């Protein structure tokens, strides 16, 4: 009997059966997932930089411990995601090469600078908050390894968002200088956070097919609206304002209307002309190039051990005293 692979694939999608690495899948589905998962992984890794810059300056030991753990979590998320992408037949080194040569993108939000401590709060609340909406949706994405990685990541992300909000909450109840710092960070991160959901649905080139294949479950604009509705409620707790004069409740739509997004700015940053694109990529290149000798040594050592150990391997390389 002739099996029609494409029909089988589509019927799995239809029945909500996850697509697994060894299953047949259309080449475009594979490529779309590779692109999306690797971009997501790169975003986690580049995303370590703006917050990492404040680890040494965190204003209390408790905040330092939380921030350090948070940035470390992002490294861990990058690791799961690279592994998920590898199941589609691309290596981590290839993906890294794509990042460093500019072939692969990462979330544009990380091309904005983190100027004050309040940015740690705004990044957690707004940037992680926007990311979570996308990631909660992705827990149900059709590619199994990606969906499972997302389930784990979402648990940690909700903690990240809470810690960010809590940083802002403390600042919002602090001195006048702290309140000003808090408002300033919200002003700077608000619009770029709205841009995180990507172009409007009418402009989004990859969306239709991704929704059919259940890689995505909601459109960019739906998620963006959900985010705005959520943030409008939460900003009240902070007693701060969102920098948008056009924000108002629309009783007909049962959603908040919001002002026009500066798409020129969005495309400029995507094209590499944002405030920190060069710095972020340079930092990744430096880490990669400076670390080359370490990776080479690790491989050389592993090769030596393989050759010199015909007998079964003993536990670790050495005993701890």
């Amino acid at each position, binding site marked *: 009997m002739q099996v029609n692979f494409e029909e089988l694939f589509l019927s799995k999608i239809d029945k909500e059966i996850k697509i697994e690495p060894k299953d047949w899948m259309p080449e475009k589905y594979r490529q779309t997932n590779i692109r999306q998962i690797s971009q997501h992984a790169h975003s986690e890794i580049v995303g370590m930089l703006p917050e990492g810059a404040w680890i040494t300056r965190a204003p209390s030991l408790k905040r330092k411990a939380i921030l350090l753990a948070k940035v470390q979590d992002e490294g861990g998320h990058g690791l799961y995601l690279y592994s998920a992408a590898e199941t589609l037949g691309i290596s981590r080194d290839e993906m890294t090469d794509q990042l460093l040569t500019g072939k692969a993108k990462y979330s544009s939000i990380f091309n904005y600078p983190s100027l004050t401590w309040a940015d740690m709060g705004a990044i957690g609340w707004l940037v992680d908050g926007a990311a979570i909406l996308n990631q909660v949706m992705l827990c149900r994405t059709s590619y199994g390894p990606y969906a499972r990685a997302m389930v784990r990541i979402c648990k940690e992300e909700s903690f990240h968002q809470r810690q960010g909000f809590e940083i802002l909450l403390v600042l919002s109840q602090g001195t006048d200088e702290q309140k000003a710092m808090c408002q300033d960070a919200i002003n700077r991160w608000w619009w770029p956070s709205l841009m995180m959901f990507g172009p409007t649905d009418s402009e989004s080139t990859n969306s239709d097919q991704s929704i059919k294949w259940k890689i995505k479950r909601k459109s960019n604009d739906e998620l963006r609206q959900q985010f705005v509705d959520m943030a409008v409620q939460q900003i009240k707790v902070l007693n701060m304002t969102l920098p948008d004069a056009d924000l108002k409740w629309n009783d007909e739509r049962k959603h908040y209307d919001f002002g026009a997004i500066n798409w020129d700015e969005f495309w400029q940053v995507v094209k590499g002309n944002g405030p920190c694109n060069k710095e972020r990529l340079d930092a990744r290149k430096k880490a990669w190039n400076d670390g080359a000798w*370490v990776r080479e040594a690790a491989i050389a*050592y592993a090769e030596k051990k393989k050759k010199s150990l015909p007998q079964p391997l003993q536990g670790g390389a050495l005993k701890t005293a």
Partner: protein
Amino acid sequence: MQQPIPNSQFLIPYCLHLADTTLILSHRNSEWCGHGPILEQDIALTNIALDLLGQARNLYQYAATLMGDEFDEDKLAYLRNPSEFKNHLITERPNEDWAVTVLRQFYFSSFQHYFYSELKNSSDKQLAAIANKSLKEVAYHLRWSSEWVIRLGDGTTESNAKMQNAVEVLKDYTDEFFVMSNEEIELLQQAISVDLSTIKNNWQQKINEVFAEATLQFLYSTQPKIGGKLCQHTQYLTDLLVDMQVLQRTYPNSVW
């Protein structure tokens, strides 16, 4: 009225020395976060930074209880000057490269392993408890750093040269581990502190064992640098604290 705590004039500086050392090394390791040579190792070194920070917090909190209500962990970490810090000098050195970072961690974790193994028997219950808890973390730090010293020492010609250079860079900084300060001598009489002379041989043996496997040559110092416990520091500590303390100093009496 708070009861005067016996030995507090020695116990407080002793706790601060232990706290400062772990805080400053945590700080240096945390500078790698997001910049490591391999993602897994970036995460591993950050874990070590987190553990050391946790140890520092336990020790500062204990010191603060001995010092009275107006002190807390943040005042001790953020509002003391470089001339009041008592960390080992090896911890304040810049990271330079992955070789120096890994070797320093190995020297320090080996030291901490033997040190905490003794301190867990301290007659001071709080210090004994902190040592006991930290010892489990240090077992991992020691395993990780030993494995990397061996891997890099016995890896490529280039990695061996970088590790041997790290041995040279750090050669004057390990003797300080074993120099007893006045407070350590005083506290030893009540079995609170650790007799550092008793752990020196174990430490050296451990280093020799790992170096043999790593094909590295240990270098003995002819001019040991030992001022850290006496609050005599390098410019590196000033620079580090300017960065670390910036928010607490710029916005005094704020809650974060």
